[in-house]
């Protein structure tokens, strides 16, 4: 990870050498993309919104892949002694289902929200490092494709479970290449998440609009920020684990081989030190979405903003002290078990605070059950079930009965699907008009929601019972006579209802798009929402804000629409249309697109294939990566031939002010920061008015 990622972070340093001799065609290979329309634009874009959309679309593709795997699992388990899949294939399918859903669906879907919404919610023109942002996406995608390519070229998927416990993941017990693809694929995807985490943290900390104090940031941005910190510190741990696993498998080391004196529990510790924060990485973005949706449709501010933020921070911190609750029966000793049991129980407290605060937000509100609101409320209820069953696992003695049974499967699906996925799909319904400029049909959305809620509970509710009745996890079949038959069949039926609901979602997207032509456009603020992304047109113009708003408080946008009269009653001071920006700014200078992130990202899987099959393949892979970095460094951030009337770079120098100048000169990020935030947001007079 570090090997390749280091120069990426540092690459821009060499920009200086390139700036004066502007290379329009670095290395003479790819013409500097000019932006515009069509696929080229998507391949070279550095626009956080387009990148967010690409994350979202790719995530949904992998949702379908993981979903098909889930359906195969459920078909296999529908009846005793199921014969749909062989044991070998079943093990690959459930492993890849877990890996796909966690790393290739929920995380990128959350990344889609983070990319799209963080800059909008804090009033920025883009993220801190737009090209690195593009790099993150392409690297993630190349890792995801690499991981799944093992079905075709690796002799099947990984067959060690998503947790990949050693020594079962060793070469002896898993001789196919599946686990190699798992290790290297996740390493590649990890680079993407790390780069993206750094990028988004810097964005949150440094790119806020004037007046946007940390404690005026919307809860969603806060939760996403905490998520990025968790990623920042959790990823290196799994990186170490994956490297060691790779060394074991490819270079004959013996980190996890007990026959050679390796310790299988080391893997478990490393994996879960990453793996437990990962749970919060998955769930916190959904918490953030819920915290935006519920106030909007309750017509009230979020109840206890400060508690919401600090409980999120508390979860982020406590999430580091509970990892061994995944290991209560692994033989870590009763004292450790007791300690981790207690720490796990108390992480329920900040989570409980969130649930109660959401309900208090609804309390006394005027609740409109739009589809987004239904999903948000469904998230609260389903997550509560998952949280409560989590408490029963925290009780270590009871966990010895529950762990590695379907009770656990039920629990984490209630948390990850019921909490995470429902919340994020609610977010899709909520921000869809903002992103795509048309509304998703509410009636079909409600069908989507109820199908999903019913299917979800039919699938995973019975798993509580199955687990307590003693059905082990990860079994490819079960015998009749243990009482597993009925509820497994119910779960299988439920899983197909979920599949139907996902189809309903896609249908809604497609049909609503077709109908949108005959409907009035949604306008900037179709939900009467609260945060500043709703003050700009839908879909969001490329430059985001005509002028970067100055923020006076929490729920800035709401306060631009409403005030209080002397009696403390809410009065409208402006309609959304009046208060919103019209997106008419022209000549806003934006960071130029680049092909190099894509080139660099293509090199990484080549290195991966090389490590697995033939080291010679690493050569072109390494060359591509090296060329990407080199050309990246030579490519000026700013394209002098950009079609719009641009704001010349040199303008930055004429302030003669060391502080800013150093910013400018450092390279990629600050330049783009300067360009994004500093470029004349609007025609001069307007800008002056906004600023002073």
């Amino acid at each position: 990870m570090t090997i390749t990622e280091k120069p990426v972070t540092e690459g821009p340093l060499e920009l200086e050498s390139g700036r004066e001799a502007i290379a329009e065609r670095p290395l003479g290979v790819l013409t500097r993309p000019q932006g515009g329309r069509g696929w080229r634009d998507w391949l070279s874009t550095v626009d956080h919104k387009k990148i967010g959309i690409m994350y979202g679309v790719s995530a949904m593709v992998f949702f379908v892949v993981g979903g098909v795997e889930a359906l195969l699992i459920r078909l296999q388990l529908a009846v005793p002694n199921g014969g749909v899949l062989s044991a070998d294939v079943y093990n690959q399918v459930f492993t890849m289902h877990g890996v796909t859903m966690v790393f290739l669906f929920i995380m990128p879907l959350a990344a889609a929200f983070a990319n799209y919404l963080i800059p909008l919610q804090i009033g920025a023109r883009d993220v801190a490092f737009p090209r690195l942002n593009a790099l993150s996406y392409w690297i993630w995608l190349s890792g995801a494709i690499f991981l799944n390519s093992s079905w075709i070229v690796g002799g099947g998927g990984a067959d060690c479970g998503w947790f990949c416990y050693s020594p079962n993941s060793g070469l002896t017990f898993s001789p196919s290449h599946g686990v190699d693809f798992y290790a290297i694929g996740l390493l590649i995807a990890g680079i993407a998440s790390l780069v993206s985490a750094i990028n988004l943290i810097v964005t949150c900390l440094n790119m806020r609009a004037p007046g946007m104090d940390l404690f005026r940031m919307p809860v969603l941005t806060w939760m996403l920020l905490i998520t990025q910190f968790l990623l920042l510190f959790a990823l290196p741990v799994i990186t170490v684990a994956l490297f060691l696993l790779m060394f074991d498998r490819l270079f004959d080391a013996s980190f996890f081989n007990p026959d050679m004196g390796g310790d299988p529990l080391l893997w478990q510790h490393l994996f879960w030190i990453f793996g437990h924060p990962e749970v919060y990485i998955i769930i916190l973005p959904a918490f953030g979405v819920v915290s935006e949706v519920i106030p909007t449709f309750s017509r009230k501010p979020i109840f206890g903003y400060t508690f919401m933020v600090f409980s999120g921070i508390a979860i982020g911190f406590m999430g580091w002290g509970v990892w061994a609750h995944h290991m209560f029966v692994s033989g870590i000793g009763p004292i450790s078990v007791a300690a981790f049991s207690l720490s796990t129980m108390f992480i329920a407290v900040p989570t409980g605070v969130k649930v109660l605060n959401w309900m208090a937000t609804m309390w006394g509100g005027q609740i409109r059950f739009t589809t987004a609101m239904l999903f948000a409320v469904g998230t609260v209820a389903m997550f509560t079930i998952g949280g409560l069953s989590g408490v029963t696992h925290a009780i270590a003695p009871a966990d010895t009965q529950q762990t590695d049974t379907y009770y656990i499967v039920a629990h984490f699906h209630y948390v990850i699907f019921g909490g995470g996925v429902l919340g994020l799909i609610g977010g899709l319904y909520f921000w869809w008009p903002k992103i795509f400029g048309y509304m998703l049909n509410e009636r079909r959305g409600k069908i989507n929601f109820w199908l999903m809620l019913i299917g979800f509970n039919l699938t995973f509710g019975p798993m509580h019972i199955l687990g307590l009745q003693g059905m082990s996890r990860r079994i490819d079949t079960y015998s009749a006579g243990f009482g597993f038959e009925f509820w497994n069949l119910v779960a299988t039926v439920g899983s197909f209802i979920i599949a139907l609901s996902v189809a309903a979602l896609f249908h809604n997207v497609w049909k609503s798009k077709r109908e949108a032509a005959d409907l009035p456009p949604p306008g900037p603020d179709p939900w009467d929402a609260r945060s500043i992304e709703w003050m700009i047109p839908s879909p969001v113009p490329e430059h985001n804000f005509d002028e970067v708003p100055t923020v006076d408080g929490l729920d800035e946008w709401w306060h631009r629409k409403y005030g209080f009269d002397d009696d403390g009653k809410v009065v409208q001071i402006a309609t959304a249309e009046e208060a919103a920006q019209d997106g008419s700014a022209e000549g806003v200078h934006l960071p130029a697109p680049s092909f190099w992130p894509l080139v660099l990202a293509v090199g990484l899987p080549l290195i991966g294939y090389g490590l697995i099959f033939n080291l010679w393949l690493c050569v072109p892979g390494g060359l591509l990566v090296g060329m990407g970095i080199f050309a990246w460094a030579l490519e000026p951030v700013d394209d002098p031939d950009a079609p719009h009337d641009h704001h010349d770079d040199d303008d930055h120098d004429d302030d003669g002010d060391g502080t800013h100048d150093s910013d400018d000169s450092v390279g990629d990020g600050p330049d783009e920061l300067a360009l994004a935030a500093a470029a004349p947001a609007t025609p001069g007079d307007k800008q002056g008015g906004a600023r002073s």
Partner: protein
Amino acid sequence: MSDPVRSLISRAARAAVFSRSGSLRSRAARAAVFSRSGSLRSRAARAAGFSRRPLGLVLGLVLVLAGCAQDAELDTFQDRSETARQINDLMYPVLIVAGVVLALVCGAILWLAVKNRVPADKDYEGEFPTQVSHNNRLEIGWTIGPAVIMTVIAVATLITHVAVNSTEANAIEVQVDGQTETWEPRVVVVGQQWWWEYRYYLTRDITTEDLGKLGEDADWELPRADIVTAGQMVIPTGQEVELIITSRDVIHSHWIPALNGKKDAVPGLYTPWKLEADEPGVYFGQCTEFCGLSHSRMRMQAVAVTPGDFQDWIDAQMDEATMPTDEDTAEYRGMEVFTNYCASCHLVTGLNDGDYNGAETYSGSAPDLTHFAGRTTFAGGLFNLYNPDGSLNDDDLAAWIRNPNDVKENYADDLPEGSLPRGMPDMGLSERQISDVIALLATLGPRPTEAQILATEVE
């Protein structure tokens, strides 16, 4: 929660579970046939238990669970030991608390949804609700409230945690080869792909430290044991039996839900655990840590017998197998087949113990077959060795010997150069050879009682 209340709740809950459970009768029957003395008493005791059952109907949450517990051999709520009861006595109240919290949250959401609902398809109009942004006192309250609830649960958890992790010294006297030995009931449990081995050290005290040491007096990296069996662990009732759990390849997990929670078998670690059964019976288990191809087909039973029966079992296990001498019999031919094809992996004391040096498998082990026919399951607890009518289940046994991979997936055939089988290979025996070797195996008794056969019936 006071003890009487807790036991009341748990008893009620268990009763509720049983009330729907078709297995109760058969379970009682199983228990009965195993205790030579008190079958009627135990049946009567069960019957008495039924009369208290109405209490259970109160507990809706548990009823939901109970409604599903039909004939579930692995049901965690059908506890049959002190430890399993302690766990459930902790679990029930927490489940009830969780149920109440869930009902409150969902109830409140529904109530709010009904009470505060405004049309969703129209924009907001009219006056705003009061814009309450926070209430610190309230919020501190519902930070402390859950913390208090969790503290109570934490204390209860710690108490139970200490209880289920404590062990007691309870040495019993057993006769081994005519000698009286003082034996601290302890079984070394060894997982390997995809079966369990149970090792009994009756004539020496064995500790976790001893197990890690390799030495001359060792087979397959563990000290030589007095009794080695596979798939079925026989334990005396009413005694706390310590387990020392380990593995020879990947991580497995040993779980007999009726008697205690599970514990992982980790290669290189010797993890202490314990089991105890109140009454004679057969208690089912399943490997619960994903261990590869046949994870789902790695099963086992704990067979609890009265102390008297346990002594009989020891006596039988200490005997060597008797080999056929009449050359015209199928058994004799089977012995030759065994020597040619099976003896490189399987040990039959009395036949190949002279030159046996571990199995040619990855784990170095294969089930000890000396008393094969004395057990009631084979192939990792997957198949019945006997039909319900008491005859040998030759169909499954022949299928297993014919091609093990067909009936239980493994990695034993067509291996790449230099790797050892994990599981039983296809030995390419003819049908004649198969029936001969089955004839031999059938002699490796002593044959279990009819009752035992009925009680262990899997599927």
